[in-house]
């Protein structure tokens, strides 16, 4: 029951957190910034609108948003939230989940290609390339976690007695993972320095350019899916940072959301303090995150025999 409530709460709060990023950026830039609830207003606005479909697009275009939304929602069912056990869990669920997210991306890309717009094809090519590289990092993390915890499920990693944590015996290695996963978070969620969520310049976009032709409720689904995806990665990092406190669910829950907020603030600060990379430097950046985790994985071989 509390798992379900916790899940519902997380879904409800997902659009709030990007508002925190925007407020952080606005604060650094000396501006007031949009209201914290801006994303809710946007979603409500989009849902009231109708969708427009190009006559040259097919059912693939219409499928894209639904599938990508579902694919973004699924991982939240499997990851522990605010100290509660996840709704579902089985051995090997992490691998399934990352591939489900892959399916979501596949359909987003297919929908983008379906429009036959040169912009969207360009964005799709970039997205496919960069997320393939990011996958290397993610699987290096999974290998590391498997060595540390002997498990392949998110519930085992982040919930219960043997949770992977900075305070644990392998905590030092997790520093690498935290940095690497933060880099992956920025990549996968099209944040600066890889992509710029605020730009209106199609030629420089990666993710945004693929959804240019979507409108109304379709766009709302895509946006909401993007919030869920960002939430999933942020929760992943939050779990790594959260110290185990032998206290009630309320304290742990508050602590969880506190750290989660800090992760989002960190995204905002990163975006305010650096410019985007040149497109040809992005692969190097992603592979750096892979190298960090891979190094950590090598280290485990030393003292975990």
């Amino acid at each position, binding site marked *: 029951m509390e798992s379900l409530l916790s899940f519902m709460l997380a879904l409800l709060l997902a659009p709030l957190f990007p508002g925190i990023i925007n407020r952080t*950026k606005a604060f*650094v*830039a*000396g*501006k007031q910034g949009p209201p914290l609830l801006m994303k809710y207003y946007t979603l409500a606005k989009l849902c009231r609108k109708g969708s427009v479909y190009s006559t040259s697009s097919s059912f693939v275009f219409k499928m894209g948003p639904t599938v990508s939304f579902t694919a973004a929602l699924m991982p939240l069912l499997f990851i522990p939230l605010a100290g509660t056990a996840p709704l579902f869990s089985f051995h090997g669920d992490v691998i399934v989940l990352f591939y489900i997210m892959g399916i979501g991306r596949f359909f987003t890309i297919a929908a983008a290609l379906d429009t036959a717009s*040169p*912009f969207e*094809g*360009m964005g799709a090519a970039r997205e496919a390339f960069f997320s393939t590289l990011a996958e290397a990092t993610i699987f290096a993390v999974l290998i590391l976690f498997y060595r540390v915890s002997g498990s392949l499920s998110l519930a085992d990693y982040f919930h219960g007695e043997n949770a992977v944590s900075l305070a644990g015996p392998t905590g030092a290695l997790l520093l690498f993972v935290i940095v690497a996963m933060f880099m992956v978070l920025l990549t996968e969620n099209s944040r*600066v*320095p890889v992509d*710029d969520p*605020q*730009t*209106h*310049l*199609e*030629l*420089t976009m990666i993710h945004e350019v693929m959804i240019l032709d979507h409108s109304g409720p379709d766009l709302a689904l895509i946006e909401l899916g993007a919030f869920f995806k960002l939430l999933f990665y942020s929760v992943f990092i939050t779990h790594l940072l959260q110290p185990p406190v032998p206290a009630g669910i309320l304290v742990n829950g508050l602590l969880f959301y506190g750290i989660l907020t800090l992760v989002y603030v960190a995204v905002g600060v990163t*975006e*305010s303090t*650096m*410019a*985007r*990379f*040149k*497109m*040809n*430097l992005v692969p190097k950046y992603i592979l750096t995150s892979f190298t960090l985790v891979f190094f950590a994985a090598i280290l485990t071989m030393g003292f975990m025999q």
Partner: protein
Amino acid sequence: MDNLLQIANGEVVRRADIPDVSVETFGMTLAEFVRNGGFVVQFFAFAENGITRLLAVVRNDRLYVTSCVVGAEFPSLTGWVSEKFHMFEREIAEQYGIRPTAHPWLKMVRYHRNYSGADDVFGNDYGGEEIPGKYGCFTVEGEAIHEVAVGPVHAGIIEPGHFRFQCAGEEVLHLEIQLGYQHRGVERLLPTVPQRRLPIICEAIAGDTAIGHNLCCCQALEALAGLTVDVGARIVRTIALELERIANHLGDLGALSGDVAFNPPAAYFGRMRGDFLNLLQVLCGNRFGKGLVRPGGVAFVMGDEQRKLIAAKLEEITPQVKNVCDLLFSAHTVQARFENTGIVSREMAEDLGLVGYAGRACGLPYDARVAFPSECYAELPHNTNQMTSGDVYSRATVRREEIMHSLALIELLLQRPETTAKAMMMEERRLAADSLVVTINEGWRGEIAHCVLTGADGAIVRYKVKDPSFHNWTGLAMSLRNQGISDFPLCNKSYNLSYCGFDL
């Protein structure tokens, strides 16, 4: 040099004194001049009493003019001598239906019916449903080539223009820029309106260069009407031109910063641009300086109150400008984006005849304020820049230096005690008959040149306008050669050229 008449910026010459040579001599003279390091300021056709002539204004460190009678065609100088003639010859072909023979890439400039009623050189029928953009772009063939078409309708608040990229993956092989969507017929309109409307129309040639273009127009009218401008008015005009420069440069530095997703300077610069526009409002009540410059002086006297307001604001804002510039230019992620992006070599820039900061960033030091000083510029210190690698970083650095230089100029000018005697209002004045005047000013984008020809009754027979963008658009296209297509917005913003200034 026998076939060239030396003239001065803003001084009337009698048309009878302008050399009138044969088309061949005309071409040879220009070819020799440009080959010896000369640049083209104006090159256009005009028709009078059934005779069409070509007239060219060229510069090295002085200004020269020459002309010839032309028939239905003339030998193109573009492929033979220099790219500097390229756009001018296309414009002549479009405006008067005169074909430059052997022009390497003859195509439309602004898509309009020609003035002379001759057959359209490009075979377009403007009575039908011709629209701007009817043109088969240059294409690159190949399996791996893809074409990206951007515009004419863009995201964001910019003017219409069509950009066609031929790409191999992320790399741009060729960019073709097709403009003309904003053509309003300014040059045709100007000779037909009452004199009092001239400054108002010139202020609207390019909205961000209201003072620059209007200054050229007013200086031309002053020269033709024999008016003198007192020192007080000249000070105000100079301050206004520099304020316009600062506001635009600041806005563009902010936009450059926004384009690389470095937000804080974008926000700060955006606010400061507003501060400088507000200073123009202090001068004349309009944030873009419209209605300030009028033939004979300025329409608003700068009193002690305005002086104090401007001086106080400058004192407050100058350190801020410095700090935010430091923030932008010292961020290594920003440097990584700016450096080696969109490079135009010095040779290329010279061949294209780039002007303004685009030229100076490539190592062409030409600054009309130094070479052909008008207003107070002869008495003011010059700006020099060391950063000349021709990339986005150089263009941004030149702008930064120009901002600081302009701030210093305004400070100097504010210390001068002279105040103009009275506000000038627009009046109809008799203009010198059968005369030519060329006025050149360094607008914030670079050399703005207006050329006015009057007829036997003193009426304007031809009014030629050239915005610096006319030279520099080709520079942008060359910047993109072998660049990542994702760097286009950055390169574009580093030039920030005018669409309506080009389209007229």
